[in-house]
């Protein structure tokens, strides 16, 4: 591989559609060449509800990205989300046959274990999106990273399985394909975002990444270096705006501005009788807004969402096991003082995640809104690296990663 490769990551978000074009150098470093963005319409809660409108927006974003980077975008890595996406962990276990020269664990054995681990009953209309290896266990020895070549009698594997409703995922894919642009892989948004927002060390120590976007709040939790939980709550920044608009009786555009310019998630630090004056315009007779009230509305929504998320995670894992703490990203993480509120709710250190492991001029791209599409580039690079590692890239890709990126079957079936 002498040449640098160029990848494009695409996220069709509820508030904006974003394309990031990045160049991966031979040494694995990533340089962002440029981004294309367009405000999205026809998308609610991370899923397309108006196909044609969404497609027009997507087209705008792609054209912008192509113009800025001088790259013809022919295929993309696509991030998807939606409330229908769920995850679970399952363990598969096989016995290695005895015999001469046996008891050595081979790739084939691991394949079999993987298939067993994936053998969970999904709801009928659901398909696998990812199945990610967490840990192998060989004869009770825990946390084996790579058991091939080891001797053992019983091999077990814990897989984290992410699945969603097939047709709903296909809708997003189809939207892209009709541009027409081909989709290389489909990636669950927070998994992509975590590739750049969390460092390996943070993943090892245990970290929770919360991506609060426009329509959804996606999360992924790493424990001991591997994905322990992931999922999506269909509540995001749009809900905050909607809440403000409904309670204050102001138009949505005004509510959005109030949220961004004046709103904060903390109620305590506001002086009594602090008012925000909304000027009147032809469609709106002016109004004075009580800032405490505004913050209360935002606080109610954000704390409710975070509490829900906490409760979901606490169902299966102890949140105190997160050594590295909690990281916030996504457009709504720009809300003022949201990290303080999250700290109160989770009783853990919370920080706003920043993009790591990128080279080149990253400053213009230091925006939590770009976490997912940036992550897609890193993700693409990792897949590519794995592909070329062995002699027969295609076969190995299928074998080692086919499951990891089970979305591929989804893509094939789409046409």
């Amino acid at each position, binding site marked *: 591989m002498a040449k640098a490769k160029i990848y494009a990551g695409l996220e069709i978000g509820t508030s904006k559609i974003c394309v990031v074009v990045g160049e991966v150098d031979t040494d694995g470093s990533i340089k962002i060449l440029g981004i294309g963005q367009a405000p999205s319409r026809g998308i609610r809660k991370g899923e397309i509800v108006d*196909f044609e409108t969404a497609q027009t927006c997507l087209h705008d974003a792609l054209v912008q990205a192509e113009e800025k980077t001088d790259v013809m975008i022919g295929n993309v890595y696509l991030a998807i989300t939606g409330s229908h996406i769920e995850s679970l962990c399952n363990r598969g276990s096989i016995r290695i046959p005895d015999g001469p020269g046996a008891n050595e664990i081979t790739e084939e054995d691991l394949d079999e274990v993987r298939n067993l681990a994936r053998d969970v009953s999904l709801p009928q209309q659901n398909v696998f999106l990812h199945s990610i290896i967490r840990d192998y266990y060989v004869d009770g020895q825990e946390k084996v990273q790579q058991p091939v070549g080891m001797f053992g009698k019983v091999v077990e594997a814990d897989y984290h399985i992410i699945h969603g409703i097939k047709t709903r995922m296909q809708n997003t894919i189809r939207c892209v394909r009709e541009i027409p642009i081909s989709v290389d892989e489909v990636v669950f948004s927070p998994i992509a975002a975590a590739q750049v927002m969390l460092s390996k060390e943070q993943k090892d120590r245990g970290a929770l990444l919360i991506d609060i976007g426009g329509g959804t709040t996606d999360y992924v939790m790493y424990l001991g270096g591997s994905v322990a939980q992931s999922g999506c709550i269909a509540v995001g920044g749009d809900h905050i705006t909607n809440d403000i608009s409904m309670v204050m009786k102001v138009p949505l555009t005004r509510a959005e501005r109030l949220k961004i310019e004046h709103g904060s998630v903390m109620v305590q630090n506001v002086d009594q009788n602090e008012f925000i004056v909304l000027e009147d315009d032809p469609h709106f007779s002016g109004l004075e807004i009580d800032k405490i009230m505004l913050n209360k509305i935002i606080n109610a929504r954000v704390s409710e969402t975070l509490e829900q998320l906490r409760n979901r995670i606490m169902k299966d894992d102890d949140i105190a096991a997160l050594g590295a703490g909690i990281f916030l990203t996504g457009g709504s993480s720009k809300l003022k003082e949201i990290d303080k509120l999250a700290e109160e709710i989770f009783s853990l250190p919370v920080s706003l995640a920043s993009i790591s492991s990128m080279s080149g001029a990253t400053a213009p791209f230091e925006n939590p809104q770009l976490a997912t599409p940036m992550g897609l580039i890193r993700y693409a690079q990792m897949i590519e690296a794995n592909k070329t590692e062995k002699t027969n890239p295609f076969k190995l890709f299928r074998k080692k990663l086919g499951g990891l990126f089970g979305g591929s079957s989804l893509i094939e079936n789409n046409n």
Partner: protein
Amino acid sequence: MLEYERKPADGELALDPEKVKVIGIGGAGSNVLDRIALHERMDDGELLVLNTDVRDLVSSVAEDKIQLGKELTQGLGAGGDPDLGKEAAQKTADEIRAALEGKSLVFICAGLGGGTGSGAAPVVAKIAREVGAFVVGFVTMPFSFEGRRRLEQAESALAQMEKCTNALMTFDNDRMGGLINQKEGIQQAFAAADHIIGQSVGAITKLVAQPGLVRIGMDDLLTALKNDSSRCLFGFGEASGDNRAQEALKSALKNPLLDRGQMLNQSSSLIAHISGGETITLFEVEILMNELSKYVNDDAHILFGVSSDKKQGESLSLTIISSIGKAGSSHINEPVLEVEDSSKMEESVQGGKDTKPGFGLNDDSDAEDSVFSGEVPEPFISDSDEEDSDEEDSDEEDSDEEDSDEEDSDEEDSDEEDSDEDAQPHQQDLIPEKKSGRGRFDKAEPTVTDEGEDLDVPSFLRKKKK
């Protein structure tokens, strides 16, 4: 498969009808009983209504009525408090015992989650066991929108019922109605639930009370329902005419609890009971069983029964009873609301278009088609025929499916809907109205938590209400 064990079917009854008692407890229970009294040909067994609420008791059509806890509640309901319901039942225990004395088969119908049903049903079941009766419970679990509190009450009552009954059939209201957020659907959803329970009580009584060519007894019933904490599968279909075997099966599988027969392949044993007039032929039975076996797992245990009943005349009916464990059932898999009452449902779905929690911005029907073709059915969409027909034998499905639904329902539950409308409102006190108040998400797919909270309504407003 069809090994006939000829028994003299000379009309001798296997179970004396006077020894059967059907008890409805609480608002939901008495609604079910009304339905049985009015719709089902329930001539085996006496009906008895127990309630704390005297208004409800008066409006019931059952012949026997006992007011629970006269002094305790002074004729009012238990107000959603199971402890009160329990105490009321205990205070009236002697009266109940007297009513049950000498009965050998007791059915208890109750809606769990409220006060009287959850509190009194286990007490009554215990008394029935004490007088030596075989007790079968029919209980409904509350709709998820009724809130977590009611669900918790229902679950604790269910656990008690499991201990005190011989067999327990659990009906999940969500599976029958499935409608959240749709005001218009509620009356019908409750009515549909009652209807199905009414059918199943009627069918089970018939099943064990009627003499059979191949008889099904209580032991078989226990086998079919033996799954722990199971969800009950029940389907009942009746038809007459040339093609009555096929038709009866079709209409039995249409039952929402069976999810068009798809739920059946998860069950390990089931009862299939065919009952017909004297004209029933072996050939018809064979066709029916062959068709049915397509839906059932190969190694499932089919407990098969046939009986003939002169009173049925030309019609043939099929009852399917089974149960599956709770695991594996998913929320997404919720069946579509398409019950016997479909004629009424239809109205509500069409009429309520504005408030229908649908897929979002689907004003533009073209766009809807292109985006959602092949979309998975959501609980609130009633016409999912396209989707399902792909998976089923195509000859089972017709394009005029809807029409036939309506015909069926017309035959089955004539026009006594009014009685439900009168009796229903008592149950609905705790259902929050969430028709609007969602702003820009009015037309988007609703986000509802497991506890039934609508997240699209501003949290600020919801918090204030609490």
